[in-house]
């Protein structure tokens, strides 16, 4: 026997389902089984049949044998379970399955209660997850101390693993929306059972809305997933070909810089140089050596990242300037060096200069052991290093 599948209509849409199954029977398609997503029809000769949904005493349970026999004796045959209901069919001309509106209304009240419970449950879940999400947000923001929310949004999204919580909340929001829709639709049906006049969409209109809405949400959902994947921040070490790029998540961004690609000198006193992960090729690669009058490397620390995602480099540079600095670098207002999109400088200390520059998708943060008089030199050299790397295309 050949089978045909159609998308299932929502379980709460009682009159629409009954009308839909009767319409399909007129086209020679007889419902056999209703699943969550698809309904299976078998092919046969077109027939005029009546379909009625009878509230199931408990959701998902088959009807009692005694009830089946009684309905059979009256010409109503059990077809399948249908969410909150049991589906029966009869030849056209058979009497109605339910003839007393008051009693039918009473049998439908447990369904309304289930739908209401689902709606409340979805609402509670949304509140719970949103609270959890934003608590995480504020706690993470609080740890950073001197960062404001707006400045750290992008970094936070990466740090807290934004994708999964966002998807979870989206799914629960969708559930909340469909639950509210179900509650509203079923309340309308109850009013019609009680004899109140309601305006209802035609079956074709209802199907159009249902399928249209489903496709709209599928499109939104897929777009969101793609966007989130693209938005997931990554950094790549400078000097490596794209094929061998090591992707680093900004969630790994920590003040000790051990996960950043680059070198960090722990200071002149100790004479130690800590080489982290991949040696930073930026300055050395281009023979750009900065040294003080004694020939010592004057870097206290330096960080370099290259963004490969659609993050705003200026925003990230701004965050890095505050996040990684000991002081409080301020935006440089005077004309910036060629090729530099933004610069932050703190030359208020007597022994330390901090510079953070962004050029294209590259960001360089330097802590220089020197006085304010060296600030312009550091800026110029750092700019040169950053733009030279940009030009070299590595």
């Amino acid at each position, binding site marked *: 026997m050949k089978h045909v599948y159609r998308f299932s209509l929502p379980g709460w849409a009682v009159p629409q389902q009954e009308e839909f199954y009767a319409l399909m029977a007129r086209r020679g398609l007889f419902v056999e089984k209703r699943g969550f997503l698809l309904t299976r029809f078998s092919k046969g000769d077109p027939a005029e049949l009546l379909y009625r949904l009878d509230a199931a005493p408990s959701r998902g349970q088959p009807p009692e044998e005694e*009830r089946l026999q009684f309905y059979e004796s009256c010409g109503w045959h059990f077809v399948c379970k249908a969410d909150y209901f049991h589906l029966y069919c009869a030849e056209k001309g058979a009497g109605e399955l339910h003839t007393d509106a008051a009693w039918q209304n009473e*049998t439908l009240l447990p369904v309304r209660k289930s739908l209401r419970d689902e709606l409340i449950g979805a609402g509670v879940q949304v509140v719970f997850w949103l609270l959890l999400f934003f608590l995480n947000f504020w706690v993470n923001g609080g740890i950073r101390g001197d960062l404001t929310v707006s400045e750290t949004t992008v970094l936070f999204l990466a740090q807290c693993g934004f994708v999964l919580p966002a998807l979870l909340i989206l799914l629960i929001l969708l559930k909340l929306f469909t639950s509210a829709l179900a509650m509203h639709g079923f309340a309308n049906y109850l009013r019609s059972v009680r004899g109140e006049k309601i305006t209802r969409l035609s079956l074709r209109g209802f199907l159009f809305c249902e399928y249209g809405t489903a496709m709209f949400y599928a499109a939104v959902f897929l777009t969101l997933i793609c966007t989130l994947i693209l938005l997931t921040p990554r950094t790549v070490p400078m000097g490596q070909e794209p094929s061998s790029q090591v992707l680093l998540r900004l969630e790994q961004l920590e003040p000790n810089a051990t996960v950043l690609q680059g070198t960090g000198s722990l200071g002149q006193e100790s004479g130690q140089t800590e080489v982290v992960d991949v040696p930073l090729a930026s300055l050395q690669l281009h023979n750009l050596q900065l040294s003080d009058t004694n020939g010592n490397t004057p870097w206290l620390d330096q960080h370099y990242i290259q963004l490969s995602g659609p993050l705003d480099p200026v925003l990230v540079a701004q965050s890095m300037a505050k996040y990684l600095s000991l002081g409080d670098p301020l935006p440089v207002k005077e004309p910036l060096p060629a090729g530099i999109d933004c610069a932050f400088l703190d030359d208020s200390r007597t022994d330390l200069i901090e510079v953070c520059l962004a050029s294209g998708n590259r960001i360089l943060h330097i802590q220089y052991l020197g006085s304010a008089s060296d600030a312009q030199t550091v800026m110029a050299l750092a700019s040169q290093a950053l733009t030279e790397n940009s030009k070299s295309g590595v």
Partner: protein
Amino acid sequence: MAQNTPMTEAMYYLLLALTRPAHGYRLMQQVNEASGGRVSMGPGTLYGLLSKMEKDGMIQLQQQDERRKTYALTPLGRNVLKQEFERLQMLVNDGKKAQVEQL
């Protein structure tokens, strides 16, 4: 349903039909006859009401064979039916006093 709440038309006619013990399909016919063809009862309504009334103690199973169950009124059921009948009678009498027929 509490005994002092007005019952639905279907319930009233079902109790009325059960003054003579009967099984499900026969009850449908008796309801139809008792109401002069005005009230017809679908199997969904009848089965649901029978289950509820049995649970409430208004009717009881009198006989059961393989295919059918025969129900009869309990003393409580008779009492409920009588109360409802008296209530309806009072309503009609009050209507008569107000000469509703001549409106």
